[in-house]
């Protein structure tokens, strides 16, 4: 479609204006409010025991969820695109579930399964494993809500590259593992990287599902998003902004690292 010069400028103004109002302005204000307190206040707010604990818990949970969903996502995408098993459509539908179900329901259903009265929870507690109101449950919830991203980014790339390069590798003597490592993985790397960034962002920011299964115990099961909420409802607005700014900064860093390393112009 060709667009005239004034129309092109108009479209840009609309797109940028829309993004500014919805995204740049609110997030910018969070940073503005944060640093309006002065740097020493920011530092004090970030170094309380609760904040430090929340920061590390958030990073740990996100790291585990990202690794789990990266491995699962690649295996699943391979099964969907390259597999021949019947019922792949079912897998395809199931992967969408975390996208369509509210995170609150994810949290509740985890309690039904793993809670003290849940059907699997009783057995686990009997064996000394606590899932709900402790980090394992928070990891499960985070893995669940961030599950589709890698699959959804990798599957179309796999479909696009086709099977010829993999077949060529096989005829040249490469084992399945060698073919995967030397041919398939490098071919899907940008799709995979983008999926990992989205998974990371989602895992860092997850609120609803984690809130329900964590119990939000300060210093124990409180992540950064939960800390923001707690401070906000305790009338510590400045503290809430500071924790929020930290969370936003981590996510923006992840996105920037990704954008800087990807030579693929379509991603820029």
């Amino acid at each position, binding site marked *: 479609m060709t667009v005239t010069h004034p129309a092109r400028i108009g479209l840009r103004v609309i797109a940028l204006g829309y993004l500014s109002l919805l995204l740049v302005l609110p997030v910018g204000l969070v940073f503005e409010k944060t640093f309006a307190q002065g740097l020493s206040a920011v530092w004090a707010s970030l170094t309380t025991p609760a904040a430090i604990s929340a920061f590390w818990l958030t990073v740990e949970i996100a790291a585990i969820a990202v690794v789990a969903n990266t491995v699962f996502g690649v295996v699943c995408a391979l099964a969907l695109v390259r597999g021949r098993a019947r019922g792949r459509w079912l897998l395809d539908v199931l992967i969408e579930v975390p996208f369509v179900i509210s995170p609150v329901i994810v949290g509740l259903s985890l309690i039904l399964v793993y809670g003290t009265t849940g059907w699997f929870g009783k057995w686990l507690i009997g064996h000394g494993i606590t899932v709900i109101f402790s980090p394992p449950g928070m990891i499960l919830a985070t893995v669940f809500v961030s599950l589709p991203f890698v699959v959804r980014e990798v599957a179309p790339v796999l479909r696009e590259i086709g099977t010829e390069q993999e077949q060529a590798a096989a*005829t040249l003597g490469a084992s399945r593992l060698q073919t995967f490592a030397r041919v398939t993985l490098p071919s899907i790397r940008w799709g995979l990287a983008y999926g990992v960034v989205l998974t990371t962002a989602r895992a860092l920011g997850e609120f609803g599902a984690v809130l329900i299964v964590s119990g939000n115990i300060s210093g124990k099961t409180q992540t950064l998003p939960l800390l923001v909420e707690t401070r906000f409802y305790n009338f510590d607005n400045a503290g809430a902004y500071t924790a929020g700014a930290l969370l936003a900064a981590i996510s923006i860093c992840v996105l920037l690292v990704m954008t800087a390393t990807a030579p693929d112009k379509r991603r820029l």
Partner: protein
Amino acid sequence: MAISLHDVHKSFGPFKAVDGVSLAVAEGSLTALLGPSGSGKSTLLRLIAGLEQPDRGEIAIGGDPALAVPPQRRGIGFVFQHYAAFKHMSVRDNVAFGLAVRRRPKAEIRERVEELLAIVGLSGYADRYPSQLSGGQRQRMALARALAVKPRVLLLDEPFGALDANVRAELRTWLRGLHDDLGVTTLMVTHDQEEAMEVADQVVILRSGRVEQIGPPREVYQRPANDWVMGFLGPVSRIGERLVRPHDVSLALEPDGDAAVEAMVSRVVHLGSQVRVELELAGGGDAHAQLTPTEADELELERGDIVYLRHSPATVLSA
């Protein structure tokens, strides 16, 4: 025999892609699998490579039963129509791939890659990426990659099918020369009769998953097994009960002799090195004759002229 197949069958759902093919490919030969699309020629090649499994039948490579052997260990080199170049690797790494996965010493790999790039005429291109090569260069790279592991047989699936006509013609002459130099048993799939005729020692003509005829190019052209083969290998005209090649038809202005068939000229087409005369036969039906420009000049044919056809040794008697 370098490759032998016995009663090989392969269906995809209700479609019989390969329907009872038996075939032997001689050591050091260049054999073409020739047929129209859907004749099963590519499937046959993929069965030999192990990229597909037959429903039944036997396949042996170098005398060894191959069916239980995965593609990795069949000792084959495979070249795909659309190159299947590893896009994220340089030309050097593409060619080195088969040796690298076999964990050969670095020095040996470097030497072999240089040697192969020289053979396929890509010596200066080692550090380029496939996207920086032309189609013909990519296919030569793919050939070097397949040859690097010293395969017992080389399988080429429509290797020039994605190339422009002039590059095609150039590369097939080059391929024949390469084969004469290296002597690797080669099986090539093509739908192009001219390509098969020019390049191959032996042509296997396939139709609907079955072998119609096997023989050297000259034999299948001059003594086609049936009407279909004759029609597939080149243009034919039907004159009375017979199928005749247009270049076997001669025209005269007078009906001397009794075998001549009367016809009217409907069009004279000058094609440079040859002249095609389109004819309406007196007994009904169309035919055409292929003359040299000298012959055509002597006859001074024009639309509407009456001529008499004769044909040299008739080829196939129609059923």
